[in-house]
């Protein structure tokens, strides 16, 4: 059994600790004896929809997003859509999350057309608008589990009917600071504003992604539990930082 990960724009959309997510996926697979193959796809690199089970896109500032958006649409778009339709996991964080929607309107300059993989649109209210910054705690309504992280975004995202939120905001801002939704999910495509190292402190979510990704080719894949004391302590400390839990 092996896990095949594709990291999109590793040196362009990598704003703040995004690498922690890749490190976590790799380690948690390896600790269970699951082999890992990592492919990095940069600007101009095409991707193969059948060569990876999990695609990751990190965050970036407006300038980097402007570089990535046309490449995502024209060079990688159809393959990523095909992989997603076929059940591959896509995890997109912050700037990458915005680019999976229909459109991102930056604080100034023209709109960036997104991939439209997630039914959502993002609007930055302008250079004077308050950024949504801080520790954030989100509850997954299905499992009751929580996700902890940090968000820092100017854009306000609103979901259409074709995507459901990843979770409900317990503390922090989430998609837009108003409707208490955070992130978006469609099939196995996940988008979130919990930037940087989302997965290390939310080991249950990392394992869910790994399991879903593995099941694309290994139907009965299940993951053995790991001793996650450090993960749980760090998650509890982060939640306590905003008085949640």
């Amino acid at each position, binding site marked *: 059994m092996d896990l095949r990960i594709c990291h999109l724009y590793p040196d362009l959309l990598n*704003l*703040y*600790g995004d690498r922690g997510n890749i490190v976590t996926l790799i380690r948690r697979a390896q600790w269970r004896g699951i082999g890992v193959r990592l492919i990095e796809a940069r600007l101009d690199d095409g991707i193969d929809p059948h060569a990876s089970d999990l695609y990751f896109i990190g965050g970036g500032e407006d300038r980097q997003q402007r570089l990535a958006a046309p490449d995502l649409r024209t060079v990688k778009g159809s393959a990523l859509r095909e992989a997603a339709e076929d059940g591959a996991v896509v995890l997109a964080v912050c700037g990458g999350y915005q680019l999976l929607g229909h459109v991102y309107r930056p604080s100034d300059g023209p709109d960036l057309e997104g991939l439209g993989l997630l039914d959502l649109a993002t609007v930055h209210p302008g250079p004077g608008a308050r950024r949504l910054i*801080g*520790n954030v705690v989100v509850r997954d309504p299905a499992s009751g589990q929580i996700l902890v992280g*940090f968000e820092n975004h100017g854009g306000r995202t609103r979901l259409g009917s074709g995507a459901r939120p990843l979770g409900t905001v317990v503390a922090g801002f989430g998609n837009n600071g108003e409707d208490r939704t955070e992130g978006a999910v469609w099939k196995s495509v996940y988008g979130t504003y919990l930037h940087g*190292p989302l997965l290390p402190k939310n080991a249950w979510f990392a394992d869910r992604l790994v399991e879903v990704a593995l099941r694309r080719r290994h139907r009965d894949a299940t993951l053995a539990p790991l001793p996650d004391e*450090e993960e749980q302590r760090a998650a509890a400390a982060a939640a306590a930082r905003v008085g949640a839990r």
Partner: protein
Amino acid sequence: MRDVAAIAAARLAAAASRAVRAGGGTTLPGRLAAWVAPGITGRLSGRLPGGVLLVSGTNGKTTTARLLSGILAAAGLRTIHNRAGANLLSGITAALIERSTPAGRPDGEVGLFEVDEFTLPGAVLATRPRVVVLLNLFRDQLDRYGEIDIIAERWRRALAGLPPEAAVVYNADDPMVADVGRAHRGPALSFGLEEAPARGHDARTLEHAADARYCYRCGRLYEYTLVTLGHMGHYRCPQCGTVRPAPQVRARDIRLRGADGSAASVTFDAASLAVDTVLPGLYNVYDVTAAAAAALALGIDPQVIAQGIAETAPAFGRGEHVVIDGRELVFLLAKNPAGFNEVLRTVLLAEPAPVVLVAINDLAADGRDISWLWDVDFEMLRDRARTVVVTGIRADDMALRLKYAGVPSERVTLEHDGWRALEQARGALREGERLYVLPTYTAMLRLRDLLARKGYVSGFWKQ
């Protein structure tokens, strides 16, 4: 008349703040004075016969200003300097007031102020500086500032507000800073490193922490013939041809002596000066070169510059050595990925494998977002650290980071209490070994405060 009242009120506030042990009284008095007498900062700094120098950048502000203070002292000039690192406008105002007569006469020739990156436009307007030193722009405290491009834009605006005769001293090795510096219409002086000693990594490859990989003009990936530190080095855009400007002040023959300092030769026109400093690590070679360039811009004699640099001791927590009961502690402030990586490389030069204390806080002055821990190459500690003790408000996050860096759990000790963490780490030392303390900013203040309470060091505001 208002200034007299403002100075009196501010002095009273500073004394009161110290009396109740609230700290050094380095910020509140400035805010109070500016409220009583708006514009007081400009009036006081305008009376400095030698003018004002401003130093800004993500890394190295405090140390570069300190080096300049040493150089100016060697040149016989007395500085008014926000030494304690209060680098917002209020801190600059407070420093001016502390060293002015009740009637508002500054007691010194030159104003020397480190300035927060975001505050630079306001500081330029308030002090009308003679020299502005632009060090570097790293990802740091994005939670406070939003995006790094916004800071570069603010710097461009700041330079546009400079008096026409003012000189800009800028880092040619940092693509974004060089872009800001070379667009300046007035006098400018650039500095850079001509080489970087091998420190266990490929000098042509960017480390993960590097920020500015893509050309600011056209978006292509820069090509590097030399990477010195983070995203800094000898870069060139293969598409639009944007290239590192050849610096006028250049450091070469760089020798690093781990935590014990470094040496280099700095050349300018035909002149060359040999500099030797107790300040450790390549980041401080940048600071030394920047300070030398600023001093050259002021027309100070190269011999005097070298002397001032040699006589400069580290600022608190930035390569500072403290001895406790016969055990030596070396404080190396580490506040962002590129800086932390360089500190790790400096520490890991030690033989045998060292004992390291890492203290991570997430208060406003540290940056509330600690995501950056995942951009630091803590994997370096896997084979090269004997014991790592972690402490601070976000000690749990740090312990988790070490787990995923592959540092075996039996070599990691988690201790939330700062003093007990220091004791544990000291307990792991063998005869003659040093303890390397790698704290974020407020974690450093906290540990130093613990040492001050026990009488091992003096309060930071007294330095």
